[in-house]
């Protein structure tokens, strides 16, 4: 909630005063998230950086229209997704955005020291996160690291809010299972939905 108001404040400063500091602050706040989001699609660090840069160029060129944008963060994600799609079409000559094989370094890992758990257990958790189906993992990261609401994730990815919730539920269950193997394995139908 606090971050939302920070973003809204920066949005206003950019729109009204062309405030370069606000622009820089917004970049610093969001560029990493957008980078990893884009990287999941384009799978190239150079391309991801360029696309994120393009997103912020776009932001600057439409600064006069910013006051009419209700949720700037979601708006930027959607632009980032579209730019990623354009890049893939341009680069691979076929219009198909594929989330398969999200690069492993786009996946966050868990730090054992931060959670007061053993390295072995952290390893199992990280393995479980990496083993999540790509879209499931992306949604998990967007909701957890980027602090996006379920509806926001749904709007960005163009899926329903229920799907987001289901995917997160599956992720939660699989991760919990990795630290606590006595849990029943997830039902087959859930897995196929992921």
């Amino acid at each position, binding site marked *: 909630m606090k971050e939302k108001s920070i973003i809204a404040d920066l949005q206003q400063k950019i729109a009204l005063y062309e405030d370069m500091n606000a622009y820089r602050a917004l970049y610093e706040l969001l560029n990493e998230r957008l980078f990893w989001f884009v990287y999941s699609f384009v799978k190239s660090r150079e391309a991801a*950086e360029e696309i994120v840069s393009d997103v912020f160029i776009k932001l600057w060129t439409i600064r006069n229209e910013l006051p009419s944008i209700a949720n700037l963060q979601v708006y930027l994600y959607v632009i980032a997704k579209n730019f990623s799609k354009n890049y893939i079409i341009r680069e691979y000559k076929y219009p198909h955005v594929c989330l398969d094989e999200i690069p492993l370094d786009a996946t966050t890992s868990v730090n054992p020291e931060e959670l007061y758990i053993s390295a072995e257990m952290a390893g199992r958790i990280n393995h479980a996160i990496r083993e999540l189906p790509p879209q499931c993992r992306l949604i998990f990261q967007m909701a957890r690291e980027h602090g996006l609401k379920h509806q926001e994730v749904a709007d960005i990815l163009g899926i329903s809010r229920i799907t987001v919730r289901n995917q997160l539920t599956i992720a939660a269950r699989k991760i919990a299972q990795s630290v606590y193997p006595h849990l029943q394995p997830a039902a087959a139908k859930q897995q196929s939905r992921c």
Partner: protein
Amino acid sequence: MKEEKIWELIILKLSGEASPEQEADLEEAMKQSPDLVFPLGILEGIWKSKPGNQLPGTADRFNRHLQRLSNHLSEDVLQYDTAAPASAQPSSRKKLYRRVLLAGAMAACLALGLIMVLHTRHRQEKAPAAAAQHQVYTKKGARSTLHLPDGTEVWLNAGSKVSYENNFAGGAREVTLEGEAFFDVAKDPDRPFIIHTDMIDIRVLGTALNVRAYADEKATETALIRGAVEITLHRSPEKRIVLRPDEKLVVRNDSPALTKPLPIMTLTQVHYLEQDQEPAPMETLWMKNKLVFDDEPLQQVALKLERWYDVKVIIADKALEQVEYSGVFENEDISQVLYALQLTGNFHYTIRGKVITIGQ
């Protein structure tokens, strides 16, 4: 409750989207399945822990981004100079300095082994206090330091003027600068220190910075050594630029109508000169009695020489004006400096009293 439902509730709770009823349901479910307490705790920890995947070098990335932005915009507002500071960009630049320094040394030797005379110039003149205004200025060829009533120290370069209200009676500490000065501003959070120049205002909170605002030069430069400053441009007061340490803002002095493709301001890095001792910012070497040219066109070099040595420099050939020079000179007289510059650039000069003429 079905186990699947519990995972959904925990996700809603972690995402901050659970209703009070759902939170209560979750509490209840946990009581009934104590087995789940541990994995749910872990999950909560994972959710709240910082992501381990962080991208280094946000500042560099932002610089690269601004470079692309300015390339993209037709109305170039701000340009970022991404060139690394001298220390990180070794060969060519260093070589150039070495060459010029060598040339300087040669010139010094050739000057018939003249004994190096330390030219300490302390011609400081105080104008009579006009009303409640203090004015301190230096003539050409002179440099000076002064202490302001609030404890701020000011080094004033040649041909410069600082004026301020008596005892900073108002709420803010305001000074007006014409020329070049280094400010080591005394901390006082309640009374911001504001430096006014022709082109910009600089708002300071306990900082060391060099400001160069000579009316006859092409640009106004602000180099921040430590602390933080906020700069407003008179030409477009809605823009505020905050500098971080080691950043330098260069604002063009000519009118915007003339700035066709050129940005009105450039943000760049403070250049450090690697000496035997610790590296020192080029922008402040004048305080240590060193005359510095940092890739500066002859036109600018001439202005600096005029102020440093209190002479008149005439560039007879316009083609020479834009040739750039770098070099650091200490305790050398004007003929030694000119001799050294002449070695690296193709020009001839004549000295007649206080008038120097440079031609091809």
